[in-house]
């Protein structure tokens, strides 16, 4: 399942943020079989091995394996140490001190110290409006990063920031002795450096071979500061289609694949593979133009009764059953339950009721027209629904057909307009969100709710915002949660934001699709983090996996 265009890149970094059921590092004690090569298949690819250039999911998952991160997620969605063994926050929330691994080394034997981390953050800050702009979000509000000694990193912020650890978890720490020569002048060389294999690595694996669009191969890094992986090698092969990937798994050319379409679950289970369906930090949505300045020809879309009616007219159970083949849950909030305590459980999926939907439309004064299509403000309630390629071809088509059929019953006509992702996003943004009417897409949020909530802010217009929603009161609440240093207080604000969205309905959340992956029974102890073992949230899964 692919993240929608505006979220394609997000999916890159974003899957990295989905964290859940992860083992606790190392392979469960006792004697395990050491060695071997784990061959993983992916239907995605790596665009670049340079963290200042890369956007694809597999690139970020690769960085997780080869570079130190300050922290990572554990099974309970808590942050645990990675390169940082411990950390403290100052009472005012502006200074964070990290104590890093002592005597650590890069794969080339050079010392790996807090100075490398300080250099990485400082470089991102220095070139944040240019070469390092793709990482600048991770250092938002950061003032400086210094390393007073080899094992201490001090990061200071201009203001209290609630999600510091979530932000820093995304940043691969780079070897200064390799990269420093590119961070000179205007820093342009930071983006032209290909970072070719073999890469000087600091994580559990070192990257030894990369053939674009074909393969990336890793070897166990003997200098790694953490628990040594049991496997000797790890390989990731890229496929153009799921069919080829699944065929390769079934024929023994692979040991595992990172994403299984619901239609292939039965086949793989019957063939004796371990197939795991995990609640995904992912949701599909129905977008209603929420720009108050939208064209008069469809301004009735702002009517709360219409939005409520649309919500009631969506048969989420049918979507889960038919489109996801049962591998998912009906959707409710834009913060999925897989994020753990950030999800507000009081927001329940709206029940399916065409009667109620029709009543609401009647109440809004939208009378039924002669041809079975209601009339709103003098024109038929017939809307163009932008369908990006992310949602078409399988899940999206089936879901749209379910929704279209039900909407027809209440006198609302939906007309699909299939576009590729880039064109779809442009169509939504066209004329400052005035033109588009409806759309369908999906999101892969981060574990921390800040990003997903930021999508609906006014500041996110033309960047991530795909609804045209903009509200000062929402923005204020968003700012407050971002600076709330008390977890309980922040949770309360996050709940409040979710309820606002559930009430205003710029998105109607359709479902939470499961993340499904599969591997051969020849392997054991491959935990998932956020539904995935190959991800950028944690090093634990591939430290842990071993031959059965």
């Amino acid at each position, binding site marked *: 399942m692919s993240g929608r*265009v*505006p*979220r*394609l*890149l*997000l999916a*890159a*970094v*974003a899957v990295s*943020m989905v964290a859940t059921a992860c083992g606790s590092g190392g392979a469960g004690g006792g004697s395990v079989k050491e060695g071997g*090569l784990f061959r993983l298949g992916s239907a995605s*690819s790596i*665009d*670049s091995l340079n963290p200042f250039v890369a*956007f694809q999911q597999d690139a970020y998952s690769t960085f997780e394996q080869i570079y130190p991160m300050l922290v990572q997620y554990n099974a309970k969605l808590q942050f645990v140490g990675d390169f940082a063994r411990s950390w403290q926050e100052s009472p005012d929330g502006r200074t964070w001190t990290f104590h890093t691994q002592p005597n650590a080394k890069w794969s080339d034997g050079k010392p790996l110290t807090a100075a490398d981390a300080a250099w990485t953050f400082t470089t991102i800050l220095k070139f*944040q*409006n*240019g070469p390092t*702009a*793709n*990482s*600048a*979000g991770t250092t938002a509000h950061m003032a400086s990063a210094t390393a007073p000694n080899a094992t201490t990193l001090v990061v200071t912020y201009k203001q209290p920031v609630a999600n510091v650890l979530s932000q820093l978890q*995304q940043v691969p720490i780079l070897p200064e002795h390799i990269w420093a020569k590119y961070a000179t002048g205007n820093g342009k060389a930071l*983006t032209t450096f*290909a970072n070719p294999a073999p890469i000087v690595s600091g994580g559990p694996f070192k990257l030894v071979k990369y053939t*674009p*669009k*074909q*393969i990336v*191969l890793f*070897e166990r890094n003997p200098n790694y500061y953490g628990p040594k992986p049991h496997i000797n*090698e790890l*390989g990731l*092969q*890229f*496929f*153009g*289609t799921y*069919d*080829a*990937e699944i*065929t*390769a798994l*079934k*024929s*023994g*050319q692979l040991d595992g694949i990172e994403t299984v379409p619901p239609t292939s679950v039965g086949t793989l289970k019957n063939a004796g593979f371990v197939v795991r369906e995990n609640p995904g930090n992912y949701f599909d949505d129905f977008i209603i133009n929420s720009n108050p300045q939208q064209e008069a020809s469809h301004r009735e879309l702002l009517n709360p009764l219409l939005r409520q009616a649309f919500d009631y007219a969506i048969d989420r159970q049918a979507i889960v059953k038919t489109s996801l083949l049962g591998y998912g849950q009906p959707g409710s909030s834009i913060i999925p339950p897989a994020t753990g305590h950030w999800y507000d459980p009081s927001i329940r999926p709206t029940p399916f009721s065409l009667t109620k939907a029709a009543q609401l439309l009647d109440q809004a004064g939208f009378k039924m027209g002669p041809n079975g299509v209601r009339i709103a403000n003098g024109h038929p309630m017939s809307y163009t629904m932008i369908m990006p390629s992310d949602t078409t071809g399988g899940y999206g088509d089936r879901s749209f057909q379910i929704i279209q059929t039900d909407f027809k019953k209440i006198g609302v006509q939906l007309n699909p307009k299939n576009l*590729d*992702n*880039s*064109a*779809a*996003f*442009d169509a939504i*943004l066209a004329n400052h969100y005035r033109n588009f009417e409806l759309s369908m897409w999906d999101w892969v949020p981060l574990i921390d709710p800040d990003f997903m909530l*930021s999508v609906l802010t006014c500041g996110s217009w*033309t*960047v*991530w915002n795909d609804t045209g929603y903009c509200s000062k009161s929402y923005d204020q609440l968003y700012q407050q949660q971002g600076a709330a240093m008390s977890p309980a207080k922040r949770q309360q604000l996050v709940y409040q934001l979710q309820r606002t969205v559930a009430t205003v309905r710029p998105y109607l959340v359709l479902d939470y699709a499961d993340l499904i992956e599969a591997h051969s029974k020849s392997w054991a102890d491959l935990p998932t983090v956020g539904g995935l073992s190959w991800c950028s949230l944690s090093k634990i899964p591939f430290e842990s996996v071993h031959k059965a």
Partner: protein
Amino acid sequence: MRSADYVIKRGFFALVTIFVAITINFFLFRILPGSAVSDLSRVPHASPKLQHALTVEFGLDKPKWQQYLIYLKQLFHGNMGVSFTYQQPVSHLLLADLKNTIPMVTVGTVAAILIGVFTGVLSAWRRGSAPDHVSTHTAIFFYAFPTQWLGLMLLILFAGTLPAGGMSNPFVLGTEPFWQHIGDVGIHMLLPAATLMLTAYGSYTLVVRSSMLETLGEDYVLTARAKGLPTRRIVWRHAVRNALLPMITLIALELGFIVGGVLLIEVIFSWPGIGLAMYNAIGERDYPMLQGGFLILAISVIVLNFIADLVYFRLDPRITL
């Protein structure tokens, strides 16, 4: 003198066509809705600043005509620009892709030509017989298959027997012995090349059959028969050589599309060639990659047609300016 005039005139037309193709390549992709910047700036907490930085970096802040002049200037210096997505020179990326595409497509196309010529000649020679019916219907059957469907069927049919994707066993650390590597690539090439061969050979069969039937009715064939020459010799020595003239155009066109015409096959079999690169570049609105790829495609078609014209001119004295 006549030859020189012909070559100069055809060469001039080819150059003008290439220039027009270059211009169309530039504007065509910019007319498409969507942009590389809106794609690439979608990282968490991205800001309009990031969009601006990317816009400036890619030169998209300049007016279109200025971008066009820069593009032309770069091309005249042999520079195809830098990929928006990979931040690497397009020429390097496409060259690597071409190196992967050409062997697979060459094997598939040559096999298609050989089988097409053989079955076409056989059909014409045995016109109206069972072999003719079988050959013609089989050719039409495969010619009508959507490439992607046939590829998927072969993929499923040979699951476990032949590799499902890639162009060699990727999980090999270190360097394989040369011949072992060649063998490995050969096995990986079987399915994509077979897909290409099966979907392409039908057109050769039908063209050759038609051309052969026409040739077999010529007076010189009748004369050869009257002289008592063996049928096999009449067919292969006299008729086939004349019947293959239309094949020159067809082959030139097919070869011209080598660089882009196998897009679906490369996607299905994860073959890391130029077709797959173009497929990805379209989704990413990677203008330099698209311009580079389509430029190579255009030049290939034009140059091969130019060569076909010259060959025709050489082989058929009836051709005039």
